[in-house]
């Protein structure tokens, strides 16, 4: 009998997740053979710099040592609500370590997990499949109507796959907002810089908008904190450089632009509406008193960092968004998928022919 008095199936689900989190400890350890192999594999695909990859593994990869029993219970409870014989997972790229939580969640739902890794960042998924017998890699998802289908990625990709048979959970694109308080200026800036450096600010929970009561001071503090980061941004593509140049010119016209070799920040002091800078370790700073919670697409808001009335107002408008302390926006509790927005469930899956 388990400590929750549930059946063997619950125990099996717990065992599978714990087994994966235990192996994850080896991947986080650069001196372990598994850790060394994973680092070699990541080098070939990850868009992050070597330091960025190491940061992701050492600080953001969920391992058995970093997960509390209470978190694990909540994680398994969420998985229990979506149990299936088999779960098919489509993984997104760029936040390479996100594969671990996504596959762990699938293992919390089903005894067999079929994964199509991201073409751009397949290393961790391959490593998991090599050591977890319940996980199988495929190049194409072919679920049955009774299977679970967990789709992670951009909205276009998810739309393209929404007619796959199966019971769908979609984890689409999103963004985070950080709210800076008045009295913890430098400490808050350092914390947000940490959140922004992780994964080069390209995750669905990365802070893309920063609300501050003293936006100019916040901009300068954040610029200083990011300039001091020892973790370089991953290499830019030509398209990235164009997007940055466009953002630079636009912000120079409407506000203030601060750019370092590995980050960029824009401030719009009198915004009429918010906008996003390209996800290249960048953020837009807006004055707290001008920002309006109704501006944001609440369906897209995944994380609210910081506290205070503005953060509360945002949370009221987007109750599904995680509330996290600044500096931990990229390390949400292991209590379920990173993104806790309501899952869009596809109800119009093809009906079997009579």
């Amino acid at each position, binding site marked *: 009998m388990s400590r929750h008095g549930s059946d063997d199936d619950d125990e099996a689900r717990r065992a599978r997740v714990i087994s994966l989190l235990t192996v994850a400890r080896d991947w986080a350890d650069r001196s372990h053979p598994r850790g060394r192999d994973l680092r070699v594999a990541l080098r070939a695909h990850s*868009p992050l710099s070597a330091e960025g990859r190491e940061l992701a593994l050492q600080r953001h990869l969920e391992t058995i040592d970093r997960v509390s029993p209470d978190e694990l219970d909540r994680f398994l409870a969420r998985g229990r609500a979506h149990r299936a014989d088999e779960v098919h997972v489509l993984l*997104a*790229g*760029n*936040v390479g370590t*996100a594969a671990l939580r996504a596959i762990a969640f699938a293992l919390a739902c089903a005894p067999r997990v079929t994964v199509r890794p*991201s073409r*751009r*960042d397949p290393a961790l998924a391959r490593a998991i499949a090599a050591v977890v017998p319940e996980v199988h890699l495929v190049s194409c998802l072919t679920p049955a109507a009774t299977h679970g289908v967990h789709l*992670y*990625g*951009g*909205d276009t990709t998810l739309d393209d796959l929404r007619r796959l048979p199966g019971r769908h959970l979609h*984890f*689409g*694109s*999103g*963004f985070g907002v950080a709210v800076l308080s008045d009295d913890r200026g430098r400490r808050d800036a350092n914390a947000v810089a940490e959140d922004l450096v992780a994964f*080069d*600010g*390209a*995750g*669905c929970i*990365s802070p*893309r908008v920063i609300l501050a009561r003293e936006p100019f001071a916040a901009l300068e503090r954040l610029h200083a904190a990011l300039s001091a980061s020892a973790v370089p941004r991953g290499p830019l*593509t*030509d*398209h*990235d*450089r*164009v*997007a*940055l*140049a*466009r953002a630079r*010119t*636009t912000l*120079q*016209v*409407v506000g203030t632009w601060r750019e370092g070799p590995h980050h960029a920040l824009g401030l*719009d002091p009198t*915004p*009429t*509406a*918010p*906008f*996003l*800078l*390209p*996800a*290249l370790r960048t953020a837009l700073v807006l004055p707290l008193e001008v920002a309006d919670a109704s501006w*944001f*697409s*609440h*369906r*897209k808001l995944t994380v609210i960092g910081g506290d205070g009335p503005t953060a509360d107002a945002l949370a009221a408008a987007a109750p599904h968004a995680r509330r996290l302390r600044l500096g931990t926006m990229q390390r949400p509790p292991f209590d379920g998928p990173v*993104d806790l927005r309501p899952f869009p469930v596809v109800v119009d899956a093809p009906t079997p022919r009579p």
Partner: protein
Amino acid sequence: MPPSTPTSDSALVAESDELHRRVQSFIATSDPSAGSFDALACALARHQVRHVTPVRRLFASAGVDPSFITRAEEIPALPTEVFRLRRVAPATARDDARVFRTSGTTTGQSGAHPMRRLDTYREGALAWGRQMLFPDVANLRKVALLSDEPRAPHSSLTFMVARFAEALGGDASFHWDGTSLDVDGLEHRLAGGPALVAGTSFAFVMLLDALGGRPLPLAAGSRVMQTGGFKGRTREVAPDALRTRLAACFSLPVASVVAEYGMTELSSQLYQPGVRDGDASYAYLAPPWLRVTAVDPASLAPLPPGAEGLARFVDLANVDSATAIVTMDRIRVDDEGRIHLRGRHPGATPRGCSLAIEPFLETDG
């Protein structure tokens, strides 16, 4: 750079009126000499630096002294995004004769182009329309797959088509109510003599769908102008395919179906030359008062003919806003000055589940 001190309202109006007069004269004579184009473009830029805050800030950030520019290519180009974020016009809105707005279908947030005077826009649109759309026929029935002006007062496209109708005489009919197409009324209006049929690409696709493959032959001498994309719509049709399908549906030569390229941020338009030249080319031609250049996407430096880059426009008809703008549309300008559209620049490399810029601004619900 010397500080630019905003002048009084009366000085602004006098200066603006004089520039409108010069631009209208340029349009009327279609003087293609580069010198006068450049001189006028630079005069416009200096006016805008004095009175339009985003242009003043653009020059300052680019380190360009407006008093020393002599060629249009020296004018820094304003990104079109700024029209969504700031008022690109003199500070006071009370003198706006009209504000044209972008549809905002992609971003949920519309851009605005305030107009202090509409006559320069009208003169430019008519002058180029007469050359490219109705150079050969004085009497065309005007049928628009658009909303009319009372229903769409902020649509520059509706404004332009309404002015075409005035110039051609007689009534124009508008068959889009904002949500649906009045197919029966449209069919009724199309029966008869030659027509100018104008509309958005999306509305034409709706018409084709409604007809379900049934042809709707138009009288010889008719022509079709379609414009715009499919932003925010559920269905897209490739431009080449749409042109062919429209020609077949209306029983017209492909050359009689032409695309217009225009945008709210511009006061001038480009057209495919089919009606004027009988040429079914997909390239576009700009009027003499609109200079189109492909520029390097990162540096915005001009590229040689034939090279693909972002579209930079110097539009003399943008008197009170920004004469030089740069879009994210990719173009190639060939040796003969014809403009080939190459789609949108993709922006930053897609990054997993990071949110792209446009969905961020989608409205909920």
